């Protein structure tokens, strides 16, 4: 009797997973198309379409970095998030700073293990809930921001908005450099010398991310292999 119930549960779960994949694929593709179409719709509204040549140039620079990062995130996080959770997490974003910790927190609270049907359900519930909360908080915040727009657009505040990127990179440098001091020091030193001696490269910083990233990954790989050898894993 118990065995019969387990078989029925397993069949129902397989059916659920199959539909989750079908629905997940269709809806993810729909969101992707909407996100890619939106800039063209905005272009029509503004009377100027995207410059595809400039876009291609930027893709060669920073876009490649995100291709690699996207693949790595996909390989690492899908096992943690399950099928339904993965579709939702890749649609709604903010993986590292919210979705992954939230799903792990939920899993710990109810004590389920990765790869089990329970984990699949719990992760999907957790990510769907956290995404809805983000959407609601942002919608409320944006509604409150509308009356503040004249202040946000004042010339006095422009130096702040013109330095969003240095502000971001300063915070990230502190975060990433702390645990990788030598790699950071070498890469920053080499790149600084390059920009000082060839200042024309300053205007193409996004392209210089490629050699900078390659140098950092190369140094990280050497460090990774050395650590494995020291632990005896590399033999």
């Amino acid at each position, binding site marked *: 009797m118990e065995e019969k119930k387990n078989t029925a*549960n397993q069949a*129902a779960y397989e059916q*659920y997973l199959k539909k*989750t994949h079908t*629905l997940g*694929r269709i809806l993810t*593709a729909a*969101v*992707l198309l909407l*996100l890619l179409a*939106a*800039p063209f719709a*905005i272009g029509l*509204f*503004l009377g100027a*379409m*995207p410059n595809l040549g400039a876009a291609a140039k930027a*893709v060669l620079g*920073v876009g490649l970095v995100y291709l690699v990062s996207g693949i*790595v995130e*996909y390989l690492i996080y899908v096992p943690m998030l399950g*099928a*339904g959770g*993965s579709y*939702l997490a*890749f649609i709604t*974003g*903010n993986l590292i700073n919210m979705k992954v910790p939230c799903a792990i*927190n939920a899993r710990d*609270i109810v004590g389920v293990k990765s790869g089990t049907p329970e984990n*699949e359900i*719990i992760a999907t519930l957790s990510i769907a*809930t956290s995404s*809805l*909360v*983000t*959407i609601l*908080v*942002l919608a409320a915040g944006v509604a409150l921001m509308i009356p503040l727009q004249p202040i*946000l657009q004042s010339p006095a505040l*422009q*130096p*702040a*908005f013109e*330095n*969003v990127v*240095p*502000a971001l*990179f*300063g*915070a*990230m440098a*502190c975060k*990433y450099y702390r645990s990788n001091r030598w790699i950071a020091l070498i890469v920053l030193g080499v790149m600084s010398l390059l*920009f000082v001696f060839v*200042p024309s490269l300053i205007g193409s*910083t996004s392209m*210089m991310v490629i050699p900078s990233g390659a140098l950092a990954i190369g140094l990280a790989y050497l460090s*990774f292999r050395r650590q494995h050898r020291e632990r005896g*894993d590399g033999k």
Partner: protein
Amino acid sequence: MELLSKLNSPFLYVLCGGIILFVAVICIVFAVRAYQAGKALGIDVSRMKRVITASATFAVLPSVGILLGVIALSGSLGTPWPWLRLSVIGALHYETQVAEAAAESVGIGGLSLSGMTSEAFATIALLMSFCIMWGMVLVIFNGKAYSRRLSAPKQTQKTGKDGKKKTGLAGFGDDAMTAMFIGLVSAYIASYIGQIISGNGLFKFSGSWLPLAVALVSALAMYVFIKLKEKWNAEWLDSFSVAGSMLIAMTCAIFLGKLA
């Protein structure tokens, strides 16, 4: 200013809000299906309710941090577009970096309203959508196969420094991702150093120091956040550290800008 009012126009709010609403409906559909499947599988309803409550409370603080990101980007990209990008798919550090690279490629120098044109904005918006779509593309084309492979009996795994089990590839995957971000951050910070020393001619030391100063203030603020988190064991501070450091540094930029 005329462009910024267009970027904050009702059309953009409706367009971006419509997509966000669609994504909210998807979340509800997935949540309802998972809840029903959980009940059918015999998972205790009270446990599922606990997960919903815990996830909702967990998400509030990071969501406020993400809202600060919308505020940070709203001065250069208007409000609706950052609202869409940070509600769906994006994350503050991804969006800002891609927007900066796109701005550079379209020839406006950097992410700033002063040089922004309609064409530049449309291009930046396209780049922001395109560069960060790989997770979605992979999950569409490979998600089913990868999930099934993971459900198959597991092979021996190694244990990482943090105690989590990792495969060999994923073990270096974490390091590679961190290294890539170090490379990315270093390229930009090095360009600020190069700008000061040789920006107006080789070794003339007359370039703008404001971007480097803002980056240093932000790094210092981040360091304080990290130390406070460690001292008080306040994990929740993580949700605010990047956006908080950025806002502190951006506020300093208003005062430092008068000196530069």
